[in-house]
Structure formats: C-alpha cells, structure tokens
C-alpha cells in the first residue's frame, strides 16, 4: 500500500469512526488545504469533532455520503 492511498484510508477511517459513533456532518468548509469537516453529536462528548480532510478520495468519499443521504 502506498503513502497516498494510505493517507486516504486513514482519513476515511476517521470519517467512518465518527459516523459510527453517531456523529453527523454539520458543516463543511473548503479551502486551499482541502476540506474542514465539522461533525456534531447532540449528546456525545465532545459535542463537535473537526477533521481536516486533505486527500481527494476522502473529500469525494464524505461528499458522496452527503449527496447520497440527500438523494436517497
């Protein structure tokens, strides 16, 4: 497994882990560094988690989840 693929896998695992714990994506800000994704959970501690998603595949991944959640 190469470094770039591993970077994607690492970011995807972090996204999946938060979603698995019941967090939902509530805010996305895209910038020169990639995307800052804010996850929120009404009862968990902390209430918010922030991920900086840099790889193209991971940015595609979380946005696919959002698009799919809207369209399904």
């Amino acid at each position, binding site marked *: 497994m190469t470094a770039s*693929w591993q970077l994607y896998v690492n970011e995807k695992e972090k996204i999946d882990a938060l979603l698995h714990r019941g967090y939902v994506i509530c805010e996305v*800000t895209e910038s020169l560094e990639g995307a800052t994704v804010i996850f929120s959970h009404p009862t968990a501690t902390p209430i918010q988690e922030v991920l900086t998603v840099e790889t193209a595949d991971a940015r595609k991944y979380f946005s*696919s989840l959002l698009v*799919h959640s809207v369209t399904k």
Partner: protein
Amino acid sequence: MADLRTNLAGITSPNPFWLASAPPTNSGYQVQRAFEAGWGGAVWKTLGEPIINTSARFAAISFQGKKVAGFNNIELITDRPLDVNLKEIYETKKRFPHHAIIASLMVEPKQEKWHEIVKRVEDVGVDGLELNFGCPHGMAERGMGAASGQQPDLVQAQTTWAKEVAKTPVIVKLTPNITDITVTARAAVNGGADAISMINTINSLMGVDLDSWQTVPSVAGKGAHGGYCGPAVKPIALNMVAECARHPAIAVPISGIGGVGTWQDAVEFMLMGATGVQVCTAAMHHGFSIVEDMIDGLNNYLEEKGLASVSELIGKSVANYSEWGNLDLNYRTVASINTDVCIHCNKCHIACEDTSHQCIERKIALDGTPFLHVREEDCVGCNLCSIVCPEPGAIDMITLPYEQPPMTWNERQTVLATYKGK
C-alpha cells in the same frame, strides 16, 4: 444498400460526402470529376472579387512517418472572374442535377455587395450558398473572411443581408479562430442562417527551416500565417460541432468540416450533430477516389447497425456530451496489463512513473521473468499507459464496481452549499 441521401436545410445530396470550398473545387472540371468519383456535393471554391495568389502556398506536417498529419495553406479565394465560375457552375449543375452544388461567397461587409453576388450566383442554379466567414489569412487582412467572422455583429448583419435576397438555403461557415464558436453561431442563426458549417482553418505557422531560418512555406524569403487543417484538427472541429449541436439556441443543421478523411470520421461528426460532412485535405492527399471507400464503409456500418438511413445517425451522441461538472466522480476505471501480450518495453511504467501517478511497478516473477503490475488502488484511470502502449491488447482499461453511488461535481457542490460554515 442503406439510404445515404441527406437533406441539409433543404439541400439534398445523394450522400453526406461533400467537397469543401477549397482547391479541389476550383473549377467545373474538378467538381465534375469529383461527382463522377461519387462525391455527393461540392462547395465551390469561394467566389468574390478575383484575387492574385502567391507561388508556394501549401505546407504540411508529417508525424512519425505519417504524411500530411496537418496541412496549411495561404491560398486565397478564387482567382478567376465570377462569370467564368458561374458558367462552369451552370454546366456542372446541368450535367449533375441531383448533386449538391453550393456556392461559397466572400465579399466586403456591405449590404449591396452581398445582394449583388447572391443574386448573380443564384441565377445559375446553385442549390445553396455558404457564406465564408472563416478564411484566416489574406482575405482577413482586407476585412473579410475570419476578420468579419470573429465579430458576431458582422456575422449577423452579413447573414441578414444575404438572406434578404437569397432564394436558396444559406449556410454560414464559421471560423474556429475564436474563443467560443457558439457566440458566432448564434449570431448566424439570429441573422437568419438556414444552416451553419464548421470549421474553417485555424491560424498556423507550419515551421521554420533550420538552415535558411525562413518560415514554411516561404514566398521569396517571407512567410505569413496560414490556415491549418487535416487530420490534426479533427478533435477541435468535432468539439465545435458538438458544442453547437447541443446548444439550445442553435437549432439549425450543421455541416461538419475539419480533418474528415474516412467514413469513420464522417460517422463521428454525424453522431455529434452534423447532417453531413465536407472534406478537403484527404482529397488533396489521396485524390477524389477516396470517396468510394467512404461510401462503402458508411453503407456497411449502417447495415451492421441495422439502420436504414444515414440520417438516423444525426445527433445520436449529442446527449452524451456535457459539461465537466456533470461527469460522474465515482466512476472508476483502472489499467489492467495483460502479461501474456505485454512486450516488456516498459513505456507504460516510464510514462506512469515520470508523468502520472506512479502506479505501474516493474516486478520479477519467481522464475525470473519480468512483468509489470498495476497497483489498482493508486491508479486514477488516466488512460496514459494504454495510450503510450505500442502493443494492441496489452493494456485494457477496466471499469471497477461502484463503491459509492454516482455523484457529479455539480451535485456535490449543490449539496455542500447547504453545509457551508456561517
């Protein structure tokens, strides 16, 4: 035999293969030879005030042994008096009443000039007119051709002037030497054009002689930019045809021009919206008889596809052409190397390693045999390896199953906009 007849804005032709307005259609002798060979139509070399040409007019680029990959000319419109051309048009039409003869016209952007030439040309029985707003060299320096074709207001005005007196369909031939050809195409439509044709030639300088330091072609030591055409321009022409074909405000037939040399080229242009095609460089390279293969090939193709008429091809691929933002980001294709076909030249490895995504590894099997391996997870499906591979069948691009549902960039941005930070 499939029905190859076409009807472009009322101009009927026994097949979709026309000769473009250019040196091959300079005289009645040539056009009649072309019709005898099988061409369905001819756009007569542009009529206007007869010009004086230079000696040394053409140049071509050969690419890796292929002659005339691109062709350049600095020849202008007809150098023969209008009456001479009209007499030959009349005689040709009389001899070939079912073939399409279209008169290409170019005059100064003045209403009375357009009225005069349209009336005189239509009197001899042409089937249609093609307004030449495209020639990029020579005539453009005199305010005609591409010079007026690059100004939408002049395209519209001149089209209107021609249409004021024209009794036959008016085709407007557009220049590709413009940022967005749909702008001038719309101007032509607004002026009343019955059809549009594209592309005329592209501004070009073919080369510089490394010994004499003179440009190519050289006219007594000097050169001037010419018009580029031939196989190399086909992708540019095809895109421009497609952009016009899918534009809702350009609802007129299109005559496709630019690098057409085979029946396959013609089919591509027709699938992207052209009603028929015009050919020049291929005929100049190989002679009029190439149309025989074009007709046979097209007929066989239609029969294989189960199509009764060539008109069933028109525009069938237009819906498959869109903006980048409508492409599916979750579609994945990756390279797959067939080791039993691979000749181990390593071109794919070098191309990928140096200029793409470093996903093709050189490996050695247990028996010592070298082989190439694609790391699928790192392959972005760019196609470069399969493009540079010299061995047919050695690399396939295979489609992977979807891991996420389809999603376009436009869909993504629409949804992400609702998640924007305050």
